[in-house]
């Protein structure tokens, strides 16, 4: 596209009239906004005594957790898709044949360097079994760098802490859709 394309409409900055040039009306308008916020409801949260309200926990990206399956075992199947997609290379997995008869592969060790992580949530999206999720825990502290490298046990314990408040998000397998519903959708 060229700048002189007739399809392009160029906007011009509106010119200030004499009311604008004397600044008084604009000053009054700004003062009105200030006063409105001075007496209006307060938005600042007195952290850490008060906690943030998280508007949509499902899409919030806080500390990771490793989910457990119905039998309390780690749900992860060690497919390395999270480690592959991770742009910060902060996930390290060691896979092994699983000790359970109904599963074949499991993570012998699973560590996330929470300091290296950029909390983009790609691991959660890549996971084919909803085993890794980002919780709403946002105030993460530690006394050393080593402490911030979360291993499998710690990630599972995050799940134990948060499972009641944030149940595992089931996106797959998709709920069975009946033919009638499907037709209704198409219409």
């Amino acid at each position, binding site marked *: 596209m060229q700048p002189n394309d007739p399809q392009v409409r160029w906007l011009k900055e509106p010119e200030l009239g004499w009311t604008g040039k004397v600044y008084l009306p604009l000053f009054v308008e700004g003062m009105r906004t200030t006063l409105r916020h001075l007496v209006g409801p307060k938005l600042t949260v007195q952290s850490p005594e008060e906690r943030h309200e998280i508007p949509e926990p499902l899409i919030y990206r806080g500390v990771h957790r490793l989910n457990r399956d119905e039998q309390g075992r780690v749900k992860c*199947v060690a497919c390395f898709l999270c480690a592959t997609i991770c742009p910060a290379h902060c996930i390290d997995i060691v896979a092994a*044949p699983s000790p359970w008869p109904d599963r074949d592969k499991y993570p012998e060790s699973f560590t996330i360097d929470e300091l290296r992580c950029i909390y983009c949530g790609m691991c959660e999206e890549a996971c084919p079994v909803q085993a890794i999720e980002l919780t709403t825990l946002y105030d993460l502290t530690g006394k050393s760098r080593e402490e911030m490298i979360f291993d499998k046990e710690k990630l599972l314990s995050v799940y134990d802490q948060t499972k009641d408040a944030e149940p595992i998000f089931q996106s797959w*397998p998709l709920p069975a859709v009946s033919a009638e519903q499907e037709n209704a959708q198409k219409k």
Partner: protein
Amino acid sequence: MATVIVDNREVELPEGVQLNCIQAAALAGVEIPHYCFHPGLSVVGSCRMCLVEIGKRDPQTGHITMFPKLQPACNTPAADGTVIVTQSEKVQQARAMVEEDLLLRHPIDCPICDKAGECRLQDYHFRYGQKERRAEILPFHSRRRDLGDVFLFVDRCVMCTRCVRFVREVAGTGELLVLARGAHEEIAVLPGYPLNNKLSGNVVDLCPVGALADKDFLYKQRVWFLRSHRSVCPHCAAGCSIWIDENQDHLWRIRPRENPHVNRWWICNDGRYGYHQVHDRRRLLGARRRTADGWEELDWAQAPLVVREALERAGRLAAVLSPFLTVEEAYLLALLVRRIDPEALLGLGPVPRMGQDERFPGGFTISAEKCPNRRGVEAVLSYFMKGRVLQFDELLGQLGPQGVRGLWITGGYKAPTPPVSHVLDQAIADRLEGLDLVIVQDLFPSPVAERAHYVLPGAAWAERDGAYVNCQDRLQSFRRAIRPPRGVLPEGWLLWQMHQRAGQFDAAAVLDEMAQQITYFAPAVYEIPEVGLDLKAGLLAATTAKTASELKG
């Protein structure tokens, strides 16, 4: 000249070989998908993935007649006037149907399947499969069965029977068989006769899907993390061409690399699983020198100078050129020792042998000589020793009579596995008594290294640049796949520095120099092809020239 028409393009077939339509299409750059066909095995035409439209052009009239039904390309020989159509709607439909059928019973457990990323079922599904799924397919858990040397994931199998044909035709052992019929077909072994032969690892590479899994590689790495490097197997004198699959300086897998002159498509299990010694914890690390009260660490930055001074002080020298050295390293070492002492003795290191050459029905041979480069080192030795090649025992015998004071021993031998001790054993160490200077450059601690004045840790083959000459005089060069561990300087790098040459070790430059100096290596002036270079041709030319000059004289 026979001509085949592939998708409206004419391709000329090479003389003297019978190709089928898959291979003929490949010549034209057209890929015909296939599971069961493999150039090294017999043709069964069972997977039906390679169905294409085939016709015939009348040589007189030029009129083309197409067959009414689709034909398997693998089972149709390409002849003059064969017409292959691979992109018609009929062919695409047939491929999509085959894919759909295979996926009906497939567990689709790609996330935990080791083959994912290099799986034909995956690749073909994306390229030729249907976009829409008509059956309700949910992933399930594949049954796993132990077949002996490998695992079989029963439900992932697409019944191409490549593995069954391999053990029958190439390995000649025939442990695998097809059980049951129709949709219940399974690969199996008879009770009491597990898959257990020296070539069994190849079935894993042959398997187009993830049904056969390597016990050594199972769940170790995802294939997309691995980087492949061209290399040459160092475990016997056959010198098979291999791929080294590596991730972050750790070898994870060795795969055969196709080479029609050496190993064709296969390698043996010794070569496949022998890489573990590269990461053995017992390896020598850090150069050291003997002092009055024990060992002293030697800085690698000073080692070239210190060792050279020690050699100069010793006076009369001898060097043992191990058959594990690359030809470049052998040449540099011989040149170095001869520069310091022009009369220096040079001999061949001990050549490990085990039993007899093993031949398999498919033509694959495992050499009894368990070192990669005896021929190459012998050629270097015969150049420096005026045609004589001193064997190790002869060399040790001559140390005293020749008044040798300093000896440089190179190794690279296998890790000692009790009860088998290191090749450089106590008996050899005892014969070195009385020498002023013994330098040992090796991978693993040995009685000889204990006895040495200087111990210089050497690199494993995957950490070196250079070339090996196999037992059939084929020179194959390779680059390093991984960096050596901390405390190890590859032989070539050390020798390069001791020669005070500028820059970093350049194996190609050394080989060029050798090609100009040594008749045996004369063909190596050209670029070394991926399948290696036959040095016998050069030898033949040299002897012909010699005979011709003799006849003239």
